[in-house]
C-alpha cells in the first residue's frame, strides 16, 4: 500500500487518483498472473513507464553474457521484461513548462526513487532512470499533486506536445502558441479517439518558420503560427504540417493546409486522430506511423478523409472554450523591466552573456539558457535551481528540445547576480546553442536499442570542444552536433549540421563501435532539411572527424556568407567522405585495443545487450484494452467482495460487463456512447440475437447475464447476490474474450 495515497488524498485530482489506483490493481493482477504481459506492458507504457537496457535479465559484463538474477524471479512486467529490473519513467511537461513547485518535487523524487538525476529529453520531457515498478504509484501520486502527469508519455498515443521554449517572448513569432499547445494537450490527453493508434503520434508548435525552436517539419502534426487578414481583421491560425518524422528514414512533413483558423485546430486534430486510428497500420509497427499512411493514401486523399471526418464530428465545447477569453497563458514577470548591466567581476560572465542570453520582445527582459551537459542535472541542482528561479522569475521555467532549461522574464539588471548564483551550483556553463552544446539520446547507457554510446561520445565531444570554445571560428561555433545511439534518430541527428548515429563493424572477428557521419542537416527553418550520410567512422575517431570537417569548412568556404549546408551541398558527398576516409580504417586489436570498446565503457564492445525496444509499444487494439479494463473491474469487484463491500462489488461487476460489451460493439460502431441502455440494446441486436456471442456449449447463457442484470431492479447489497454477480460478470467477460477472438479470426 502506497503511504502517499492517504497523505495526498484531496490534493490529487480525483480522476488521477482513480487512474493510479487502477494501475495498482493491474500491477496486482500482473503479480498474480491474471493479465496478459503484452497488455500490461502497453498499459504501463501509456503511463510513461518504460523498459530499460538489461531488463530482460541479461547483461554482457565484458567477459560473458550473464543472467541478472533478480529476486522477483519469473515475474514479468511485459514481454521479456523482468519485474524487478530497473526501468525508466517519462514525465510529460507539455511545451516544456515547469513550475518552481514541480521542479522541487521532481528533484525530490529523482533522489528518493531514481539515481538522483533529472534528464531533459529532446521532446521537453523529464526522464528518470533506474526506477522500480513498485515505486511508480507513489511517484505518480506525488507528481500528480503538483499537476504533472505521466499519462501517455510513452506508448501508441499522443505524446508530449512540444513548442518553442521562447513562445510568448520571442521577437519573431506571429503570436504566442503556448495557450494553443496547452489546449490541444488537455483536449487530446486520454481522448477516446486517440487510443487506438498503431504507433505514437507527436505534435509540435512553432511561432515562426525561420527559426528552429518548434521543429514542426519533423512531427506527425506540426502547427506553425500565422496570421492572415480576413475581412480587414487580423485572424490567427496555423499552417498545418503532417507526416513528418525522423526515425531510420526521415520524412519531411507535407503541408496539410496553408491556413487553419484557430477555432479549427482542435477539431481537425481530433478528426486526424480518428482517421489515423481507423486506417493506420496496426500489424507492422515499422510502417505504422502516420507518415506511412499519408504516403500510402497521398496527402490529398488523407486531407479529404480528415475533412470528411471533421464534418461528422459531434460538437464539443472544448474546441473553442479556451478562446473565449482570449487565448492567454498566465505567465507573468515577477520583477520590473530594467536595462542590461554587463559588468560583473565574475571571470566568465561575458562569455556566458554572449551565448546564453536572449533579449525578449518585452523590453527590459531576457531569457537565460541553462546549458545542461547531456541534458542532465542532479536532484540537488534541480532543487537549488528551483529556489533561484523562484527568486528571479517565479514559474517561468521551460525545458527545451535541445535538452536545456530556460528561465524567462529575467529582469536585465539581475543578470550578473543570477549568473553568480547559477555558477555556484554549476549551472552557468556558457556556449548554449553552440557546437559545444551537443545533444544526445540515451544510447547504450539505458536504451535497449542502443548500438553505440551516444552519451559517451557526446560527453567527449563536449569536453574537447569546450576547451577550445573561445578560439573557435564564429562559423564553427554556430554549428550544431547531435548524436543518436542507433539509426532511430531520437538524438535528431538528421537535422544537425553534423550528426552521428551509432552502428557497428566487424573487424577480424571483433566488433567495433562506429558512428555514421551525417552532414548538412538543417536545424533552422523548423528542421527544414535532412543531412546526408557520408560514411561510418570508428567511435574513438569521431572527435578527430569533427576537427577535419570543421577545418575544411573554414578553409574552403567560398565566403563568409556560405553556410555549412551550402558548403556541404556544393562540394558534395564524395568530397566530404574523402576528408574522413583516412579515419575509417581500424587498427587491429593487437595494435590498439582501445578501438574495441566504447566511450566511457571499458567492456569489450558487443551487441549482446541489445533488446527489443519499447519505443513503439506493443500493438494492442482498443478492444483488447477495453476488455482488459473490464477484467480489471471484475478483479476489483472480487476485492470488494473480499472486503465485504457488497455495493461496490455489485456496481463494479455490472460495470465490467458493460465495458466488455462496449468493447465488442465498438468493432462495428466506433462511437457507441457510454450509456447502459444503448450498450445493452446494441449488444442484444448485434451479438445476442445474432448468436455471435453464443458459446458452443452454454449457448446464450453468458450473454443473458448482462441482459438480466440490466432488467433487474437495484440489487440487494448482500453477500450472496454480490457473489453471484461477480461470478456472472467473470463468465461474461470470458465469453466476450472468446467472441472477440472468433471475430478476429473471421469466424463470426
Amino acid at each position: 500500500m502506497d503511504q502517499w495515497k492517504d497523505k495526498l488524498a484531496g490534493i490529487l485530482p480525483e480522476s488521477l487518483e482513480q487512474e493510479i489506483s487502477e494501475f495498482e490493481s493491474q500491477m496486482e493482477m500482473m503479480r498474480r498472473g491474471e493479465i496478459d504481459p503484452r497488455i500490461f506492458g502497453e498499459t504501463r507504457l501509456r503511463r510513461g513507464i518504460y523498459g530499460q537496457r538489461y531488463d530482460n535479465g541479461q547483461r554482457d559484463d565484458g567477459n560473458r553474457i550473464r543472467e541478472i538474477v533478480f529476486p522477483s524471479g519469473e515475474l514479468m512486467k511485459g514481454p521479456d521484461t523482468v519485474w524487478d529490473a530497473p526501468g525508466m519513467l517519462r514525465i510529460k511537461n507539455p511545451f516544456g513548462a515547469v513550475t518552481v513547485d514541480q521542479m522541487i518535487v521532481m528533484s525530490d523524487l529523482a533522489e528518493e526513487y531514481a539515481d538522483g538525476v533529472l534528464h531533459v529529453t529532446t521532446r521537453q520531457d523529464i526522464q528518470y532512470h533506474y526506477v522500480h515498478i513498485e515505486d511508480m504509484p507513489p511517484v505518480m501520486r506525488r507528481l500528480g499533486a503538483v499537476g504533472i502527469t505521466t499519462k501517455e508519455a510513452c506508448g501508441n498515443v499522443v505524446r508530449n506536445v512540444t513548442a518553442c521554449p521562447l513562445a510568448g517572448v520571442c521577437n519573431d513569432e506571429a503570436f504566442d502558441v503556448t495557450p494553443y499547445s496547452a489546449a490541444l494537450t488537455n483536449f487530446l490527453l486520454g481522448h477516446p479517439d486517440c487510443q487506438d493508434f498503431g504507433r505514437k503520434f507527436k505534435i509540435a508548435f512553432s511561432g515562426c518558420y525561420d527559426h528552429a525552436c518548434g521543429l514542426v517539419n519533423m512531427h506527425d502534426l506540426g502547427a506553425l503560427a500565422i496570421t492572415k487578414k480576413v475581412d480587414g481583421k487580423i485572424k490567427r491560425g496555423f499552417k498545418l504540417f503532417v507526416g513528418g518524422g525522423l526515425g531510420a528514414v526521415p520524412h519531411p512533413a507535407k503541408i496539410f493546409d496553408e491556413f487553419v483558423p484557430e477555432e479549427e485546430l482542435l477539431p481537425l486534430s481530433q478528426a486526424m486522430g480518428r482517421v489515423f486510428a481507423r486506417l493506420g497500420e496496426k500489424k507492422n509497427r515499422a510502417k505504422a506511423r502516420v507518415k506511412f499512411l499519408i504516403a500510402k493514401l497521398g496527402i490529398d486523399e488523407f486531407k479529404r478523409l480528415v475533412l470528411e471526418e471533421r464534418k461528422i464530428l459531434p460538437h464539443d465545447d472544448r474546441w473553442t472554450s479556451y478562446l473565449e477569453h482570449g487565448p492567454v497563458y498566465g505567465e507573468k514577470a515577477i520583477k520590473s523591466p530594467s536595462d542590461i548591466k554587463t559588468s560583473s567581476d565574475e571571470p566568465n560572465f561575458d562569455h556566458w552573456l554572449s551565448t546564453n542570453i536572449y533579449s525578449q520582445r518585452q523590453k527590459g527582459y531576457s531569457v537565460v539558457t541553462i546549458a545542461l551537459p547531456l541534458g542532465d542535472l542532479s536532484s540537488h541542482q534541480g532543487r537549488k535551481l528551483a529556489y533561484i528561479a523562484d527568486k528571479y522569475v517565479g514559474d517561468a521555467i521551460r525545458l527545451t528540445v535541445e535538452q536545456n532549461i530556460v528561465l524567462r522574464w529575467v529582469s536585465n539588471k539581475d543578470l550578473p547576480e543570477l549568473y553568480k548564483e547559477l555558477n555556484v551550483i554549476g549551472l552557468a556553463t556558457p556556449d548554449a546553442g553552440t557546437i559545444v552544446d551537443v545533444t544526445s539520446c540515451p544510447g547504450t547507457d539505458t536504451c535497449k536499442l542502443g548500438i553505440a554510446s551516444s552519451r559517451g561520445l557526446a560527453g567527449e565531444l563536449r569536453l574537447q570542444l569546450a576547451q577550445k570554445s573561445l578560439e573557435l571560428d564564429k562559423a564553427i561555433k554556430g554549428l550544431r552536433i547531435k548524436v543518436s545511439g542507433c539509426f532511430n534518430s531520437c538524438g535528431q541527428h538528421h537535422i544537425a549540421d553534423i550528426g552521428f548515429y551509432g552502428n557497428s563493424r566487424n573487424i577480424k572477428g571483433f566488433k567495433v563501435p562506429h558512428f555514421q557521419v551525417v552532414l548538412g542537416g538543417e536545424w533552422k527553418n523548423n528542421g527544414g532539411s535532412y543531412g546526408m550520410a557520408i560514411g561510418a567512422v570508428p567511435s574513438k575517431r569521431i572527435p578527430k572527424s569533427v576537427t577535419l570537417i570543421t577545418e575544411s569548412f573554414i578553409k574552403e568556404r567560398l565566403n563568409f556568407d556560405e553556410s555549412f549546408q551550402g558548403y556541404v551541398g556544393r562540394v558534395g558527398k564524395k568530397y566530404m567522405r574523402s576528408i574522413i576516409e583516412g579515419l575509417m580504417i581500424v587498427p587491429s586489436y593487437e595494435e590498439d585495443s582501445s578501438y574495441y570498446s566504447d566511450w566511457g565503457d571499458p567492456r569489450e564492445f558487443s551487441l549482446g545487450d541489445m533488446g527489443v525496444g519499447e519505443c513503439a509499444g506493443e500493438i494492442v487494439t482498443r478492444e483488447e484494452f477495453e476488455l482488459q479494463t473490464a477484467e480489471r473491474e471484475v478483479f476489483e469487484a472480487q476485492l470488494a467482495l473480499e472486503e465485504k463491500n457488497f455495493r461496490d462489488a455489485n456496481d463494479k461487476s455490472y460495470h465490467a460487463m458493460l465495458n466488455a460489451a462496449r468493447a465488442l460493439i465498438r468493432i462495428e460502431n466506433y462511437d457507441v456512447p457510454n450509456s447502459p441502455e444503448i450498450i445493452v440494446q446494441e449488444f442484444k441486436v448485434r451479438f445476442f440475437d445474432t448468436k455471435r456471442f453464443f458459446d458452443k456449449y452454454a449457448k446464450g447463457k453468458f450473454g443473458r447475464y448482462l441482459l438480466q442484470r440490466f432488467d433487474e431492479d437495484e440489487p440487494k447489497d448482500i453477500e450472496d447476490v454480490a457473489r453471484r454477480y461477480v461470478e456472472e460478470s467473470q463468465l461474461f467477460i470470458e465469453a466476450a474474450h472468446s467472441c472477440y477472438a472468433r471475430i478476429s479470426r473471421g469466424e463470426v
Partner: protein
Amino acid sequence: MHKFGLKRKIKSINTDIESFVPLFHNWIQEDKIPNHTMVDVANYKHIPDGPGIMLIAHEGHFSLDFEDDELGLLYVRKTPLGESNSETILAIQQILDFAVKLIQIDSKVGEKIEFSDKYQLFSNDRFELPNDVESKKKLLQVASGVFNDAILSVPPPLKGARLKINIQ
C-alpha cells in the same frame, strides 16, 4: 524505514574519478558485493553537485558522489534491510565499509585514494522523515545510538533537501 544513505568521506584522491568506471564494472564481473544484484555502471561525472560514478544495484546504489563538493563513497539503500532504523543504518555502514575496503585493496586506485573516518548520514524518505525539526530530532536520536562515540552535527539545511547528519 530502509531508505537511508551513508557516505564515507574521502580525504584525498589522486586519480580521475573516471577510474571508478572500470572498478565498478569489475565488481559486477566478479560479484564483489555480497547480497547485491548489480545491474550497471552509470557515469555522471559531467554533473557538478551530482552522483559522479554510480554502481546501480537492485538493493542499493553506490556512488562516488560529490554533492556539495564533499567527495565520498555513498551507499543509498533501496530495499528493506533491518528490523529497526538502527539495525538498518548499522547494516548499511557494514556494506559501505566493505566497499571502502574493496577500493583500498584495488591495485589500480587503492593507493591513490584516502578515506577519512567521517560519515554523512542521509534520510531518503520524505514520508517517514520529511525535512522538519521533528524528523531531524528523530534522525539524530537514531544516529547517536548507532554511532555512539561520534560527534554528530547537522549541516545548515536547504529547504526541502533530504536530511543530513555529519558524523565524526
